[in-house]
Structures are given as structure tokens and as C-alpha cells.
């Protein structure tokens, strides 16, 4: 055991708080090391000073004064005070550290619960839109590599139903494609496809009941939902109608798709502004 270890153990050694083996080792070291023995002596002396640290004698008058004051306080606390007296105490009580922490925790929990509620309710709304398309389970046009939808020609086999991401992507690509095809005057105007607020409206014309939901971009509050449930005489029965509102209010994409039972009929696909 070297001096450094002994110096670490000395404070406990002088108080006899070291267990047997280590205490013996320190004792053996102190017999051979003068410096550590001097340190041990200083520790003993300072401990002795500490043990002699007695308060000055307090006379009975001081004690009696304390007791009197205690009884006075007890009497004051037991007597119900007026609101003016109790209110500051109550307010002070609220600012005690424990209550302060408890209040902060409750507020945090409430904030977490509220944010969770809002996030989950928004998520549910988005899920509804996605669920509408598989419900219709219509064969839909596939997106080509260039981004424009491909319309199946007569005699072609119906396409597999949309998946969520495909549907959304297709809708966005349609916006770009329509600008290219029909609205050359608006070609130069960027549509901002990525940030385009999409409003997808699906209406089952057979039932005349809208099967609709809103898909709105979280970042854009301009998104609006429209329900188009009116029967269209030009559109054949059992056709799914899907309207997509782009961020340009002048461009709305309307997409008709036949119901799954009419697999042999070709899809109708039209664009409107």
C-alpha cells in the first residue's frame, strides 16, 4: 500500500470506519512513513476540535421563549383565519417545489395527450382517403415512365387496382401531364407538384352516395374538399368518379373509372379544367 492509497483512507481510518484488513495495512504503513503519520495526526487533531465543538450555553429563557413561540404559532394555525390570511398561504403552497414539479408534469402530460390526439385525428382523416380507392377497386390507369397516365385501349386487360402511394403519385403526375397535353398556355407556370394540395373526391354514381374523403397536405391550408355526388348523364352507371383539385384553382382533374364488375368495359378517363 503506497502513500497515495493511505492518504485516501486516512479520513476513515481516524474514525475507525475501515474494516479490519485495510485498517491493519494502514497501521503498518503509518509505522514506517513519517509523512503519512503526520497527516494522520492532523486528522486526529481536527477531529478532536470538531468533537469539542459545543454550542455556547443557552439559558432557560431562550428555551422558554422558543416554547412560547411554538405554542403561539400552533394557536395561530389552529384558528381558522380569514380569506385574506389564508389565500397567501394557499398561493405560497402552490409554489412549493414538489407541487411545482407535479403541476409541470401534469401540464406536460396534458400537452402530450393533446398533441397525440391531434396527430392521430389527422392521420385518420388521411387514411380515409386512401381507403376509398381500394374500396372502389376500379382498374385504374397506370403511370408511365414519363409520369403521364396510360389509358388502356380496347381489348387490353384491366390494370390491377391502385395502391395508396401509386394512387397519389398518379394523381400528381396527371397534373403535370395535363399541363403538357391540353393547356400549353399554362405550361410555363410551375404547378409545384410536390407541394400541390390534393383534394381527392370519389363519388359512386351508381349509389348516388358520395364515397369521399379529403386528402389535404399538412403544409398547405389551401386544400379544400369537394364532394361531387350529382349524377352525370354522360357517365355510364357504376362508374367511380374521382376529382383532384390541384393548387391551381383553374385546374381540376376529374377521373372516371368503371366498377370492378364491368371488367370488360374500357376505362373512361377525362380531364377538365
Amino acid at each position, binding site marked *: 500500500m503506497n502513500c497515495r492509497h493511505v492518504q485516501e483512507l486516512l*479520513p*476513515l481510518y*481516524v*474514525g475507525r*470506519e475501515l474494516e479490519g484488513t485495510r485498517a491493519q495495512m494502514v497501521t503498518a504503513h503509518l509505522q514506517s512513513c513519517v509523512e503519512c503519520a503526520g497527516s494522520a495526526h*492532523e*486528522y486526529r*487533531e*481536527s*477531529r478532536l*476540535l*470538531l*468533537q*469539542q*465543538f*459545543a*454550542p*455556547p450555553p*443557552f439559558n432557560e429563557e*431562550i*428555551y422558554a*421563549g*422558543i*416554547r412560547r*413561540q*411554538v*405554542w403561539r*404559532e*400552533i394557536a395561530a394555525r389552529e384558528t381558522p383565519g380569514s380569506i385574506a390570511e389564508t389565500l397567501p398561504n394557499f398561493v405560497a403552497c402552490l409554489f412549493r417545489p414538489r407541487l411545482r414539479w407535479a403541476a409541470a408534469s401534469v401540464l406536460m402530460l396534458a400537452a402530450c395527450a393533446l398533441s397525440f390526439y391531434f396527430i392521430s385525428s389527422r392521420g385518420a382523416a388521411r387514411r380515409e382517403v386512401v381507403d376509398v380507392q381500394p374500396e372502389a377497386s376500379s382498374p385504374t390507369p397506370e403511370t408511365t415512365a414519363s409520369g403521364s397516365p396510360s389509358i388502356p385501349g380496347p381489348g387490353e386487360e384491366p390494370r390491377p387496382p391502385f395502391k395508396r402511394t401509386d394512387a397519389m403519385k398518379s394523381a400528381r403526375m396527371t397534373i403535370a401531364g395535363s399541363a403538357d397535353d391540353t393547356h400549353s398556355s399554362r405550361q410555363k407556370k410551375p404547378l409545384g407538384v410536390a407541394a400541390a394540395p390534393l383534394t381527392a373526391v370519389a363519388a359512386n354514381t351508381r349509389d348516388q352516395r358520395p364515397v369521399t374523403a379529403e386528402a389535404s397536405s399538412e403544409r398547405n391550408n389551401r386544400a379544400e374538399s369537394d364532394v361531387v355526388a350529382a349524377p352525370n348523364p354522360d357517365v355510364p352507371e357504376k362508374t367511380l368518379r374521382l376529382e383532384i383539385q390541384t393548387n391551381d384553382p383553374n385546374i381540376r382533374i376529374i377521373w372516371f373509372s368503371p366498377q370492378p364488375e364491368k371488367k370488360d368495359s374500357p376505362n373512361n378517363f377525362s380531364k377538365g379544367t
Partner: protein
Amino acid sequence: MSSRNFAPMPSGASNIDLAVEIQLPVNALTQTQTSLSRLIERAAAGDPAAFEQLMIHSQQRVMAMTWRMLGQEADARDASQEVFLRVYKYLGRFNQEQDFFAWLYTITLNVCRDLAKKRQHHSDRFISLTGGADAEVFAGPADQDDAEDAFLRSQQRALISRALATLPHKERASIVLRDIEGLPTDEVARIMKSSATTVRSQISSARKKIRTHCQLYLSRKARGQSL
């Protein structure tokens, strides 16, 4: 609680039918504890006289402890008063199987901590040993032999008081309970609601700091200089 012992017959009174009955206390400590627990029971039941007796019984310990923790009489008085108010308030919750004075020490330490936080003047009172007010403390009338002892004691008291004032609350509480009140480490740990290892570490750290603080005084004392 007491046994009846019969003293042996006086040698010269063998034919006298006389015996002296002496009543000896078997265990004074047990008796004291029993009377204390009765006092606590009565005080907890709302007996003001019992609570008054309880205060009288424990006032010296409480006052000494608060003075050692806070270092000033006025603070010690305020703290003692608050301790007794808390004892009055929470005596109903006191478990009779527990040691009353350990419980009292816990309350006292809590009160001292709260008061020290409120006043925040312990660290401000610390003055370096190398100069300033210490020069006044150590420059005493060395020629007055009769006053020397008292003066030396006051010096030591001031020294330790300042050394304790430099310690953090937990270290101060540990060292006061262990070295001044003389409680075993386990008991200190129980009072401080901590582990024995932690308390040992706090005690070790406190002793190192106090030794460092007292080193100048001790070295002068060793050299036999007048302080």
C-alpha cells in the same frame, strides 16, 4: 421495571427479625424510553402538557444541532421553533417502533436545509484563514493567562464553525451527526435516508476539508506560537 432486592442482614442483628427493602432501578434507559413513548403517545393524542414535556425533553439536542448546522444563535432559535412545529404537526405519523431522536434529527436536518436555502448566507460568512477577520480572531490578548483558555475555546469554535460553513449541507450533516453527536454510521445513514457507503464517503470528504481548513491553526499550535 424494578426488582426488589433484600439487603443482607446486619451482622449484629441476626436475631432481629428485620430486613431492609431496597428498590433498585433495573434499567434506567428502558424506563426513560418507556416514559418517552408514553409522552409521545399522549402528545400525539393532543395533550398539550405532554407536548410541552416533550419539547423540554428534546430542546437541548435540537438547539445544539441547529446551532451546529447553522452557526448562529438567532438562526438556531428560528430553526428549533420550526422543528417543534413540524413535530407537533407530524407526531401522529410517528411510528413508535422508530427511534424518536433519529426522527427528530431527520426533521431538524430538513428544517436546517430549508432555512439555509432561504437565507443563503452560510457561504457568505466564510472568510479565508490567511487574513481579514481571521487576523482579528487569532490576535488575542496572550498576556492574560486567565482568559486564555476561554479565548482559545472561542477561537476553536470560530474555526470549526467556519470550516463547517464551507461544507455542503449533506457533508455537514453527516460529519455533525457522526463526529459531534457521536452516532454510528448506520444510524447516520438512516437519519439521512441514505446508504452507509454514501455517508462514509461524505464523512471522508468532510474530514479532508476540515483538516485542510484547520491546517494553519494546527501547524501554529504544533509550533507553539501564540495565535
